[in-house]
């Protein structure tokens, strides 16, 4: 495919267009993704999650500059929510990443969730593959400002950075399960507000070594540019840890498993949305409503008789 060849040559316009094809689920998207897949797997994918307004975009903006100085090509996929009412979105992460301007070694893509939950869009990690194939070394994925349970990012990224800020809850908040268990690196941003030390020590108290990696807590101020080098070093250190042990392979397996499972779910949804199968599906729905069958048994029967779309 022409567009794939252009992406592999480093053509940004083609990469932008291919990401749109994937988002819109265009006819050629599946074929294009299959063609680029062998050229992926080189980039280090780093996810950023944490509550809205904690400074994820501003931190990424600082990190882009830091890694550009270190001569790495940097990509960003930044996800913002789609309105559930109108389907529209205002994507504003780019405002805080405008320092990079026309730097040829940077590619930033804003993405709306388009109804997908978990803090990511359906196309997020396919867009990551496009950037990987484009020759980007380091890809930051910024989730929707997540609450306490949007943890999908951890099974998709190689390194997950959880960003918190001072004065956002006491030691009990840090004890809660979910988002505070998924980080490979924890950041207390906005140290300029004061109170960062106690937040950092509350977090630090909760963290344990897992499979040879003890998540560090890094204090930063994206506003003042403090702690950015330390955070960049921590990201690189985690990369070396993953590559040195079995971590990289394990993360890749997690990701592959998740993507395979999601692709199967998607195929199933497609299979039952066409005209003939869709009607059969609706018949079964009716049978479940009137208690002629139950959802679990009906699912078994449907899967047994399934004909997949070509």
């Amino acid at each position, binding site marked *: 495919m022409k567009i794939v060849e252009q992406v592999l040559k480093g053509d940004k316009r083609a990469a932008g267009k291919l990401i749109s094809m994937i988002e819109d689920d265009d006819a050629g998207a599946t074929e294009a993704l299959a063609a680029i897949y062998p050229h992926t797997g080189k980039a280090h994918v780093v996810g950023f999650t944490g509550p809205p307004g904690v400074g994820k975009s501003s931190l990424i903006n600082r990190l882009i500059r830091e890694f550009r100085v270190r001569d790495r090509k940097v990509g960003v996929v930044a996800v913002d929510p789609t309105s559930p009412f109108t389907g*529209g979105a205002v994507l504003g992460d780019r405002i805080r990443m405008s320092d990079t301007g026309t730097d040829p070694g940077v590619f930033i893509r804003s993405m709306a969730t388009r109804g997908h939950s978990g803090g990511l869009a359906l196309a997020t990690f396919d867009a990551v593959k496009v950037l990987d194939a484009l020759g980007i070394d380091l890809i930051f994925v910024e989730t929707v400002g997540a609450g306490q349970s949007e943890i999908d990012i951890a099974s998709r990224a190689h390194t997950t950075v959880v960003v918190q800020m001072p004065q956002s809850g006491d030691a009990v908040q840090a004890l809660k399960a979910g988002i505070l268990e998924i980080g490979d690196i924890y950041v207390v941003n906005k140290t300029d507000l004061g109170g960062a030390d106690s937040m950092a020590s509350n977090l630090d108290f909760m963290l344990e070594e897992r499979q040879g990696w003890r998540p560090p807590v890094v204090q930063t101020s994206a506003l003042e540019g403090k702690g950015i080098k330390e955070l960049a070093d921590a990201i690189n250190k985690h990369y070396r840890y993953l590559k040195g042990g079995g971590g990289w392979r394990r993360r890749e397996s997690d990701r592959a498993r998740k993507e395979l499972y999601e692709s199967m779910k998607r195929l199933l949804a497609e299979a039952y949305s066409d005209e003939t199968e869709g009607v059969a599906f609706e018949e079964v729905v009716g049978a479940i409503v009137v208690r002629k069958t139950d959802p679990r048994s009906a699912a078994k029967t449907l899967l047994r008789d399934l004909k997949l779309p070509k």
Partner: protein
Amino acid sequence: MAKKIRVLMAKPGLDGHDRGAKVVARALRDAGMEVIYTGLRQSPEDIVEAAIQEDVDAIGLSSLSGAHMALFPEVVKVLKKRGAGDILVVAGGIIPDDDIPKLKKAGIKAVFGPGTPLADIVAFFRSSAK
């Protein structure tokens, strides 16, 4: 999934008055479009680079400083240079009537001055952005 209309809203040049751009951004959002807002003080090169990475169908430029004749045609020129001349460029802000034909000649597809009903702007993006 249906094709979404994606629009980049940008303020080239030095003025900081972005209320108009934000109001239009919100109207386009409410019309179901995805609006990438890039903020203030963008050079034409910055705007084109962002438009390419975001693969937008259209760019909305806003200026209230009087620098539109220097900046808006430059955006069209840089787009063409980068092989992205198919991206629609639309303008708004304080634009004297005399300048509108000149801007259109320079490749700006529409100019929306103060008082334009939001519905007109939405309708234009809907029918013109593919």
